[in-house]
């Protein structure tokens, strides 16, 4: 190649070439690379979805064999039902508190949330232990946009961070890029929930004097303008307050187990009249 000293061997030249290509790709706008990735990986997304379903079926069969033929499907159904009921209970508690404070509120799911909901299937996961992301099989063609909230059984699963023609990437609650304005269900203490990777989260800017205990459930406060208020997000696992710091350090675990999710609901943006 012109300009490169001839002393460089073929391996060194190839290294420099791929180094330049990598840096070029990093400099491209993420909107371009994200859209190109989703478009190029559409057939791979089909293979991913098939692999996830096949693996789940195989795991279910093995569990059944290991349990001596016990009804593992019934156990799984009941587990999902318990998770749905806990999210529903947290939301009902929030609604009852608002009604008691004499504010106008909807009982149950607001009608506009039902109208905005789009069902999507899980296609794959991000393998990195530092990120917590998933790919859904709905994209721009279905009306999905960046920052659309994603719910599962009424609890928060994450938000859309990139969109392709027929798929989208969701930053789950444990992802460092997922930040949610939350409020304690019991004491109304507020903070910003941010993921640490691997499903673990921290609630930042919680006031030092706030009453927060392990086991407290945190719901969306709606103050971030992305997530509707009143949806279960995480459960507190540990609380610490360093000396001299203005805020408490609250560790939490996501309420949704993303590895068990098969379908999710994407809340589409409200269209201007």
């Amino acid at each position, binding site marked *: 190649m012109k300009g490169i000293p001839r002393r460089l*061997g*073929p*391996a060194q030249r*190839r*290294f420099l070439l*791929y*180094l330049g*290509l*990598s*840096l*070029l*790709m*990093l400099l*491209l706008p*993420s909107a371009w*690379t*994200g859209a*190109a*990735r989703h478009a*190029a*990986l559409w057939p*791979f997304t089909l*293979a*991913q*979805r098939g*692999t*996830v379903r096949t*693996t*789940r079926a195989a*795991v279910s069969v093995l569990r059944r064999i290991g349990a001596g033929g016990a009804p593992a499907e019934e156990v799984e159904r009941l587990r999902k039902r318990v998770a749905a009921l806990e999210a529903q209970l947290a939301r009902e508690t929030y609604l009852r508190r608002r009604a008691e404070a004499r504010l106008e509120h909807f009982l149950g799911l607001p009608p506009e949330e039902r109208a905005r909901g789009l069902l999507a299937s899980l*296609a*794959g*996961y*991000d*393998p*990195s*232990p*530092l*990120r917590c*992301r998933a*790919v859904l099989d709905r994209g721009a063609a279905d009306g999905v946009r960046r920052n659309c909230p994603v719910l599962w059984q009424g609890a928060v699963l994450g938000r859309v961070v*990139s969109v392709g023609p027929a798929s989208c*990437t969701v930053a789950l609650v444990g992802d*460092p890029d997922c930040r949610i304005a939350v409020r304690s269900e019991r004491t109304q203490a507020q903070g910003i929930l941010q993921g*640490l*990777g*691997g*499903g*673990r989260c*921290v609630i930042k800017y919680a006031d030092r004097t706030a009453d927060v205990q392990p086991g407290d459930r945190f719901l969306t406060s709606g103050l971030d303008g992305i997530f509707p208020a009143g949806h279960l997000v995480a459960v507190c696992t540990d609380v*610490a307050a360093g000396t001299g710091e203005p805020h408490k*350090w609250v*560790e939490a675990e996501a309420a949704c187990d993303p*590895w068990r999710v098969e379908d999710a609901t994407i809340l589409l943006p409200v269209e201007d009249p």
Partner: protein
Amino acid sequence: MRTVYWSSLFLVAALLATSALPVVLPVRWRPDPFAILLVFASLHARREDLVRASWVIGLARDLAAGGPVGYGALLYLVAGAAISAVRGTLNVRHPLVSAIMACCVVGFTEAVPAVPAGLGMPLPAVREAFRGVAAVATVTALVTPPILWALDRLSRWLGFGRRPAFQGG
């Protein structure tokens, strides 16, 4: 035929990493198929081919996983170049050497992005992040030797034979 074989290995590694292993294993118990594939490539590829293979592995990881496109390609390119530089002095076919190599690849490709992400985060969060990386690196190191043995047998059964580990320098 060799192209089809390597393409199949890339596809299987991507499906395992993004679709099969997350369903079966918790985060810290999942080995990294891409790192294992890179170590396997170091056993069979010439120096210039190893550079290309490592870049393609990193790019495949970027496309399948959802991170910034080019970031993983850059990290795996550097890892592949480092392996290429040292494999002339090491017996890379030894199980312990291949395990350490896989551990180092995971540690490098996961820890480097964690450093800028950890700036400004409290120490417990940084500690938790690096514990996760260490767990994945350890699990990957443990499963690498038997997987490489199986892939080596598969290669010979398919008639690709066994190239000297550092043919071409």
